């Protein structure tokens, strides 16, 4: 990854982590008085705390995984330039999206209620669906790693994974409009899981040497 990308993404992660810690400090009284809160208030407090900490942690994990993929790939099969650029741009888009979600959740944690709750959740889900769709659509155009033993198999695997990702994006987008708000986490989590699984299985298959 370029230094610029790393600097940008890690700066966002640190800022998001500081926002999360700041909110937690700001609501320290609520934690101190946890036993005195109503059940609903406790659920909200725990929910916001977990969400505020989860988003920067998830982004940090993704960034480390991407960096590991780049450095490991450089040893085994150097990534093609367009593949490298695409991965970095996807990471930047994910980082900006995560930062937006973090800001919304931080405001919710401060106010006690998310601003425009249902609309906000649906908007975030719709943006996530669009990001999925765009990323999966264009991922299929990237080149195989340099010196790959069977580029045709790699290209077909990437295209198949792209189809799954586009379908996942459509499912998320449609559910942002039509599904109950409470099902957001399950739908986004499920669609993401299917996309990741498809990617792993397809590319494990692409690694098999032809007979």
């Amino acid at each position, binding site marked *: 990854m370029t230094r610029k990308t790393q600097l940008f993404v890690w700066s966002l992660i640190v800022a998001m982590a500081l926002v999360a810690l700041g909110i937690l400090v700001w609501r320290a009284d609520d934690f101190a008085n946890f036993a005195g809160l109503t059940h609903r208030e406790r659920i909200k407090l725990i929910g916001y705390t977990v969400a505020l900490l989860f988003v920067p942690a998830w982004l940090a994990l993704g960034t480390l995984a991407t960096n590991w993929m780049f450095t490991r790939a450089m040893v085994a099969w150097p990534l093609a330039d367009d593949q490298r650029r695409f991965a970095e741009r996807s990471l930047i888009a994910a980082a900006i999206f995560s930062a937006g979600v973090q800001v919304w959740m931080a405001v919710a944690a401060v106010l006690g209620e998310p601003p425009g709750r249902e609309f906000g959740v649906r908007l975030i889900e719709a943006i996530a669906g669009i990001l999925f769709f765009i990323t*999966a659509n264009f991922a299929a*155009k990237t*080149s195989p790693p340099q010196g790959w033993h069977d*580029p*045709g198999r790699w290209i077909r695997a990437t*295209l198949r994974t792209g189809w799954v990702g586009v379908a996942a994006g459509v499912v998320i987008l449609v559910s942002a409009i039509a599904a109950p708000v409470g099902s957001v986490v399950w739908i986004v989590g499920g669609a993401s899981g299917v996309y990741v699984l498809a990617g792993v299985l397809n590319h494990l298959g692409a690694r098999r040497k032809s007979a």
Partner: protein
Amino acid sequence: MSRVFKALSDPTRRRVLQLLRERPMSAGELAEHFPHAKATMSAHFAVLREADLVADERQGKSVIYRLRLSVLEDALLGFADSLGIGFPVIAETPKEEGAG
């Protein structure tokens, strides 16, 4: 986008993309599958390159073409193939009176 539609509107170019789906091929290998002259095939390759549906790489004296489709472009390719876009429409010959 109009370059993509133009590229996918021709059945020869669509067939080239189907062949490249198996593996990257040289211009010569691709041309062997078609009855067209070299210049015609070069023109087809140029249209595909302009539409960014294939990537080319020079290896010695050969040019190797590799597939470069997005999911939407793959969908358009399948759509155009299933509709038979670009194939000449064969008109029905009118039945002769008194025949049969």
